[in-house]
């Protein structure tokens, strides 16, 4: 039998995944695990989900042929325009799904962690839409470097609570959210923002995001007469935008997968977030996966200029793509990413999120053929990062 790169019944991708959780989370995780597939396959759920994606999020997002970029690199470059989603990134595909799920589970209070703030905004947005209370945990460092998104969450009525432990970034915000859930196990649903955490989160989030890849298949068929690009390319923080794009292609090895990680100041500098290259197998936030850690098993404080990639772990799906070599992993420094942010702005009139910029830098790392079809996930827009760009380039 052919091996699959998707999750198995036990919640594992190869060696990775599972649910390494404190007992205090067990009832919630078990409730989710036992119900998510049924709920998600309900007709009514499907139609509500698809309707909101269409009418509220603005899906399908275009698959845009980047003419100037393609010419410059002498290959065919398509951008999947998740930056056009309501709230400005792919994150909302997942929060729409999870809020509908939370309602069916009878939850009246939502918590979330956020790094770049995109997931926080996406969560605050769906909570406003449904009239549900929302608390977002965000590292203190991220609160200051992603100020516009903090403002947006407040406008949307969410409470933003600073995580002040550790590196004060995404990992610590996640710890805080988990602690909140442990303290509020009855009325609260925790909307995780990426394909991380204990099973069934990685699979659930990947399914909600898979709309990205599903649309690409249809759109590419129309535009190029084939459903299959040569490459699907995405940045990887936790891995949700990548998972969403890769999903329908996971087991089709004719479509090559490239995961782009944040090298920060360089993978040898100790200031990096290139999880797959620097990480070892271990457990973070309830999942067995690759993570950056000391020999002693203490989780390393990661670094990236981009708040959404500043995470020491990676989703178990991606850990497996790395180990099995199904995916090629490339790491991109702050400098390379920032310059690509400017390049894409000037070449295509699209200011990408710094997370997203990392993906495009692959074009300078790897030679592609003239007939190759590259689909990049343009995971988010750069509005939240303007201060960082402006400071960096002294514009």
């Amino acid at each position, binding site marked *: 039998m052919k091996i699959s790169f998707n999750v198995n019944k036990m919640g594992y991708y190869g060696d990775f995944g599972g649910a390494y959780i404190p007992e205090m989370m067990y009832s919630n995780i078990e409730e989710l695990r036992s119900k998510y597939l049924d709920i998600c396959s309900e007709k009514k759920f499907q139609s509500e989900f698809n309707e909101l994606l269409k009418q509220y999020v603005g899906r399908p997002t275009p698959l845009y042929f980047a003419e100037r970029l393609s010419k410059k690199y002498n290959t065919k470059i398509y951008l999947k325009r998740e930056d056009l989603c309501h709230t400005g990134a792919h994150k909302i595909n997942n929060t729409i799904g999870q809020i509908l799920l939370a309602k069916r589970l009878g939850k009246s209070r939502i918590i979330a962690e956020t790094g770049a703030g995109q997931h926080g905004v996406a969560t605050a947005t769906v909570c406003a839409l449904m009239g549900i209370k929302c608390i977002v945990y965000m590292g203190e460092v991220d609160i200051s470097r992603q100020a516009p998104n903090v403002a947006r969450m407040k406008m949307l009525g969410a409470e933003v609570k600073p995580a002040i432990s550790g590196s004060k970034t995404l990992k610590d915000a996640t710890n805080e959210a988990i602690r909140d859930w442990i303290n509020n*196990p009855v009325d609260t649903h925790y909307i995780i923002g990426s394909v991380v955490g204990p099973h069934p989160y990685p699979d659930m989030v990947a399914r909600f995001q898979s709309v990205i890849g599903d649309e690409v298949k249809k759109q590419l068929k129309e535009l190029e007469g084939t459903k299959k690009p040569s490459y699907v390319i995405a940045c990887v923080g936790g891995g949700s935008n990548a998972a969403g794009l890769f999903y329908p292609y996971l087991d089709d090895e004719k479509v090559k997968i490239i995961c782009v990680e944040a090298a920060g100041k360089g993978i040898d500098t100790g200031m990096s977030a290139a999880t797959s290259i620097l990480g070892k197998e271990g*457990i973070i936030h309830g999942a067995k996966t690759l993570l950056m850690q000391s020999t*002693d*098993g*203490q989780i390393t404080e990661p670094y990236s200029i981009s708040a959404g990639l500043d995470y020491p772990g990676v989703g178990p799906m991606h850990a497996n793509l790395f180990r099995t070599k199904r995916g090629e992993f490339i790491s991109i420094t702050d400098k390379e990413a920032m310059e690509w942010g400017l390049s894409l702005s000037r070449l295509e009139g699209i200011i990408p999120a710094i997370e997203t910029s990392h993906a495009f830098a692959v074009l300078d790392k790897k030679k592609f053929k003239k007939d190759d079809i590259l689909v990049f996930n343009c995971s988010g827009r750069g509005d939240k990062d303007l201060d960082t760009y402006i400071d960096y380039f002294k514009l």
Partner: protein
Amino acid sequence: MNRINKVLETKKNILSIYFTAGYPNLDDTEKIINELSKSDVDMIEIGLPFSDPLADGPTIQKSSTIALKNGMNTENLFVQLKNIRNKTNIPLIIMGYFNPILQFGVEKFCKSCNDVGIDGMIIPDLPVDIYEKKYKPLFDKHGLLNMFLITPQTSDKRIKFIDKVSNGFIYMVSSFSITGAVNSFGFEQKNYFKRINKMNLKSKLLIGFGISNSSTFKDAIENSNGAIIGSAFINFLKENKIEDIGKFVQLIRG
């Protein structure tokens, strides 16, 4: 017979005290264990500090951060505990998150525990299911008990499963709260204690989380075989000398 089981069988109103190894100072481990052994304490939980202790409240988090900064690590802990059994016969439990144990090597970890005379483990993020399927034989081989938690949300069915797998005590989380010490237990918590007691489990029950003074300790032992104190003891260590631990224990015992 394992020292933990001996205490569980012979004692009532058990008091178990948690501290974070390497806190307040790197080399306090032995001193604290000795002082606790001299006092009216029945078991000791030695916290192996972790960078991301997601089931702990701020007090224990902070002590872990300081302990790690002080240089505490797994290797080091076993060095510090090397001769501990020359000094005390009190049951010693290591409480630690799974990742550092996994990196050390689970088998090597169990063996090291056995070497220095550790009696059991509490690993909050190693669920009973995974333990049972994968790690139990190793623990058994090295004579280590593994203690599991239950909470007000744990179903009766799952409690029975945990009871079956358990060979030490069951750690009964007092409430939903990991925010640390509270002043007294409420109606809901007491109901929960009663419910569990009615289940007639084979395992003994110790109540933890939120025990901070003689009144909450009294509440706890009325409903169980004993109680575990963590945050309140860490707070005590922050402000007092190790030599005064006996007084803290007296205050709790009331």
